[in-house]
């Protein structure tokens, strides 16, 4: 396409336009460039981010027809006029809210239907190299980390909901039922809850429980202890006593929630946590990259997206090869 102005369209110009810094020639060149559908699509991804960062400053729709009527009226006699675009914007907002509500309802319905149509037939779930999400008969969920084993009944008929965890690591999200406590039996200790979310790790003869939400009771034949959100309980090997810490590493259960939070964390920790949560490994092209520190919140990001973000934040580049991501670049001093 021939253009009236010989101006190259780069990311910087698009951003300059959005930021209201473009001169009239640049604006025209950009608008010409936008007549091509693929350019428009690209522009819109950037524009969407720009608008998301400041939702109140979104441009409303423009009604040329309406505007012409106004101007046309003015071109005859000279009358003062006032704008009615504000009312128009309000209608648009209401439509938007209604649409988003509708989508939420539909999504919830879909999840509900899916949860209810999942047939649970097997009673023992075993994982090796991959993770598994299990819907228990009471709609509680269990996410099994690698090399884990969980046994549960097809229906919870008794007075309690009881499951057996033999080894590995499982993140439980237990639905609330005050009448029927939920009990996890392990060879080291038992864990009793009413309704909460927490992580259980059984490694050899050590057991560790960290609580995300609610309240959990751990008990052995020697000792028992209540843990609330943000606490970790460790059952000492052999002795059956419970050691309680007033902290949790929320990234421990990142494999179940895909939510990872880093606050000025050394990259080594970041990589360990990501490798646990995602089925990929990460290598570094340069030792200095290990010196970098990261502050970031990842919530349900794809591994690819997450690594691109880290790279962009730390001025690195990322190469993907099968299940291995390599970070390259100068790194940090």
């Amino acid at each position: 396409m021939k253009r009236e102005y010989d101006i190259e369209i780069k990311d910087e110009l698009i951003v300059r336009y959005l930021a209201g810094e473009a001169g009239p020639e640049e604006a025209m060149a950009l608008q010409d460039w936008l007549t091509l559908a693929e350019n428009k699509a690209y522009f819109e991804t950037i524009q969407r981010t720009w608008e998301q960062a400041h939702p109140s400053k979104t441009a409303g729709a423009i009604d040329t027809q309406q505007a012409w009527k106004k101007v046309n009226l003015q071109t005859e006699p000279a009358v003062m006029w006032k704008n009615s675009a504000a009312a128009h914007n309000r209608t648009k907002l209401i439509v938007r809210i209604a649409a988003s509500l509708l989508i939420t309802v539909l999504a919830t319905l879909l999840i509900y239907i899916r949860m209810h149509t999942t047939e649970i037939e097997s009673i023992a779930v075993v994982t090796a190299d991959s993770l598994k999400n299990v819907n228990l008969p009471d709609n509680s969920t269990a996410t099994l980390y690698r090399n884990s084993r969980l046994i549960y009944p097809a229906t919870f008929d008794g007075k309690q909901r009881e499951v057996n965890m033999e080894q590995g690591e499982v993140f439980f999200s237990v639905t609330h039922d005050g009448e029927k406590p939920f009990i996890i039996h392990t060879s080291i200790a038992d864990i009793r809850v009413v309704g909460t979310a927490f992580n259980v790790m059984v490694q050899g003869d050590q057991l560790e429980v960290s609580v995300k939400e609610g309240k959990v009771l751990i008990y052995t034949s020697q000792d028992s202890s209540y843990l609330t959100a943000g606490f970790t309980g460790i059952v000492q090997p052999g002795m059956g006593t419970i050691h309680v810490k007033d902290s949790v590493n929320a990234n421990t259960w990142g494999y179940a929630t895909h939510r990872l939070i880093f606050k000025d964390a050394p990259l080594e920790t970041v990589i360990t946590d990501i490798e646990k949560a995602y089925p990929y490994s990460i290598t570094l092209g340069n030792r200095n990259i290990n010196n970098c520190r990261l502050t970031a919140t990842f919530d349900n990001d794809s591994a690819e997206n997450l690594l691109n973000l880290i790279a962009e934040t730390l001025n690195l580049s990322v190469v993907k090869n099968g299940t291995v991501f390599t970070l390259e670049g100068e790194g940090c001093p």
Partner: protein
Amino acid sequence: MKKNKIDLVNIYKGEKVQLPDQEIIKAIRQGDKEVFEQVFHACYENLCQYVFTILRDMDEAEDIVQSMFLKVWEKREELNIQQSMRSYLFRAVYHQCINQLEHRTIKLKHREYGVYEGQYKVQQPEVFPEELSENIRTAVNELPQQCRTIFMMSRYEELRYAEIAQKLNISVNTIENQISKALRILRLKLKDHFIL
């Protein structure tokens, strides 16, 4: 002089470059309302969008574009346009915007002197618009330091590139790069969970 409507519109959407602009201008000078209307329909939306980027207020943007068209019509007989009609319109609204911005700055200064003299903080912009969702706040807060400062000054304090450059004593080029970088990071961060 008979005009083909569709043709005119296409011209102004940038699909054709050879403009019979002198004819358009001549027609408007002679008071041809139909041609004037066609130019209006072809350019109005694009002009509003452009003005909106500068003023960040669509009501104001529409006001400016409408009154500019009115002015063109009122002064049609003296219309002396060397470039294309479209260029003329874009430049005219651009100058109008710059005027408007200067107006705002003056108003703001009066207000500042009156109430919060010298309390204006430059280094660390902290104030987010209230309605901003938590995940966007987090994403913006986690941008690399300089990137975040510049992005916030541009997006939330609504400062112009030149003003930011002056306050931070850096080049406009750096600002462009940092804001583009911020958008790249935010786009990646927000990609997997779009809000409607």
